[in-house]
C-alpha cells in the first residue's frame, strides 16, 4: 500500500515535471531580464560612476579577459592562481583532516583529553591567522597555510563526529560474529562515514573559497582574484569590481555543484537505503 501510493505520486509528478520545468526556466529567464532591465534603467537614471550599467560591466569583463588589468595580468591568470592556492591548501587539509578525524573518532578518549587545546584553535577564525602568516611565511605557502586552516577544521570535526555517529547496531552485529577490529573499521565504519566526510569536504571547500579572498586582499601578492577586486576598489572602478565578484560567485557555485553531483553519483546507495 505504501509503495503503490509512492509510485502513484511519483508517476503524477513525472507527468507534470516536464511542463513545470519549462515554465520555471521561462520565469527564471524572464525575471533575469527584468532584473537586468531595472538595473540598466536605474544606472541610466543615476548617471553615477558608482552605479555602472550591465553593458559597462560586460565591457570590463571582455577587457579583463583579453587585455588584462592595470598590471597586464589577465583574468584567467588571476582565477588560475586563486584556484591553485585553494586546491593546495584544501588537499593538505583533506590529507591531514580525514585520517586524524578518523583516528580521534575511533579513540574518543584522545580527543576528549586534548579538547582544551583543539577547541580554542578551532574557534579562531582562519582570517585572524592571516597577519601571523604574513609575518612568518612568504609566497605560495602563506596562502596554502591559511586555506589549510580554513578547510581543516570542518573536515576534521565532520569526520570525527560521523565516526561517533555510526549506527552501533552495524558495529555490534559483526562483532558478535567475531569480526576483527580492523575488519569492522574497513568494512563498516569507513563506508558509513564516507558520505559525511564528503559533505564536510564540501563545507571546507566553501570556507576555503571565502578565506582565499581575505588572504589575497591582505596578503599582498599581485595576482589572485581577491587582490584584483581590491586593486580596482582603490581606483573606484565599480564595473571591474562587479565582474570580480560575479566571477567569485560563479566559481563558488560551480565548485559546490560539482561536489554535489559527485556526491550524488558516488553515494547513490545511501539514498536508496534511506528510502
Amino acid at each position: 500500500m505504501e509503495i503503490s501510493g509512492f509510485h502513484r505520486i511519483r508517476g503524477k509528478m513525472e507527468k507534470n515535471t516536464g511542463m513545470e520545468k519549462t515554465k520555471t526556466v521561462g520565469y527564471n529567464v524572464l525575471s533575469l531580464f527584468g532584473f537586468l532591465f531595472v538595473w540598466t534603467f536605474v544606472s541610466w537614471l543615476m548617471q553615477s560612476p558608482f552605479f555602472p550599467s550591465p553593458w559597462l560591466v560586460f565591457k570590463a569583463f571582455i577587457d579583463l579577459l583579453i587585455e588584462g588589468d592595470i598590471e597586464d595580468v589577465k583574468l584567467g591568470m588571476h582565477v588560475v592562481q586563486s584556484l591553485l592556492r585553494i586546491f593546495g591548501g584544501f588537499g593538505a587539509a583533506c590529507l591531514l583532516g580525514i585520517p586524524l578525524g578518523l583516528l580521534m573518532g575511533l579513540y574518543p578518549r584522545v580527543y576528549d583529553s586534548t579538547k582544551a587545546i583543539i577547541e580554542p584553535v578551532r574557534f579562531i577564525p582562519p582570517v585572524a591567522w592571516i597577519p601571523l602568516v604574513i609575518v612568518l611565511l612568504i609566497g605560495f605557502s602563506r596562502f596554502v597555510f591559511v586555506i589549510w586552516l580554513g578547510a581543516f577544521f570542518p573536515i576534521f570535526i565532520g569526520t570525527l563526529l560521523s565516526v561517533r555517529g555510526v549506527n552501533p547496531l552495524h558495529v555490534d552485529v559483526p562483532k558478535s560474529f567475531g569480526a576483527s577490529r580492523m575488519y569492522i573499521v574497513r568494512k563498516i565504519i569507513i563506508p558509513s562515514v564516507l558520505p559525511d566526510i564528503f559533505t564536510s569536504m564540501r563545507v571546507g571547500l566553501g570556507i576555503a573559497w571565502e578565506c582565499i579572498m581575505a588572504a589575497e586582499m591582505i596578503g599582498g601578492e599581485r595576482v589572485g582574484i581577491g587582490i584584483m577586486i581590491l586593486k580596482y576598489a582603490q581606483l573606484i572602478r565599480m564595473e571591474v569590481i562587479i565582474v570580480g565578484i560575479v566571477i567569485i560567485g560563479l566559481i563558488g557555485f560551480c565548485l559546490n555543484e560539482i561536489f554535489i553531483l559527485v556526491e550524488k553519483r558516488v553515494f547513490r546507495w545511501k539514498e536508496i537505503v534511506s528510502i
Partner: protein
Amino acid sequence: MVSAHTDRIKSVGFNVLSLAVFVFLWALIARWQASPFFASPQQIASGFVQMVTEGDSEGIGLGLHLWKSIIRVFSGFGAACVLGIPGGLFLGLFPWVYNRTRIIIEPVRFISPIAWIPVAIVLLVGFIRYVFVIWVASFFPIFITTLWSVRQVNPININVAKVAGASRLFIIRKIVIPSILPSIAGGMRVSLGISWMCIVAAEMIGGEMVGIGRLILKSAMVARMDLVVVGMLTIGVLGFCLNEVFIRVEKRLFRWRSAVSIG
C-alpha cells in the same frame, strides 16, 4: 551516575594536563628559538596585561577594540535577522516566487561575503561599511535555512489542521512557525560564526583604526607577535562563548523538541 561523574573529573584533569604540556612545550620551543617571531607564553601574558591596562601603540585598549567589533557584528547580524527571517518565511510559504526568481538570488548567494568588502569600501563609509558586510555574510544562511525549513514542515501536521478546518493564518501561526523555530535558531548560530569571521577580514581591509581585526594586523605590521596572538586568542574565546551561549539558549528554548524526538 557515579561513574559518569568520575569520568568527567578525569576528562577535565586530562584536559588540564594536556593544556599544561602544550604550554610547556610552547615555552620550551620559544626559548630554544629565541626569535622575535615566536612569542613565548610569558610574553603573551604580559602583552595581554599591557593591552588591557595601557592599550596598543595608539593608546586604544583591548576592551574598546572588542566593544567596537561586537557592536558591528550585532548590528549587521540584527539587520540580517530582521530581513532574513521574514523574507525566508515569505518565500518558503510561496515557493513559486523563489523558484521563479532563483536565477537572481542564487548567484548572489555564492559570492563570498568577503568579496563584498571592496564594494563596501567604494560605496559606504564608516560604521555602515562593516554593518553591510556583516549583513551580507549573515543574511543568506538565515534566509536559506528559514526557507528550507518551511518546506520541510511535516505535511501531516498541516493536513490534520486543514482537515479540522483551520485557516491558512492559523496554520502558519500555530504549526509552521513553531516547527521552523529550531532550524532558524540553528541558522542564526551558523551565521553568527560566519559574521565573526567576516568582521575580522572587514576590519583588516576596511581601514578603520579600532576593531579587533585591525589590532591584529597593526601588531603584525610592527612584528609584535605577542599582541597578534593576544588578539587571535581573544577572538577565539569570544567566538567560542557566543557559540556556547547560543547552544544553551537553543537547548533551553527547544527542550520540547528533544523531548518529542525521544518519544
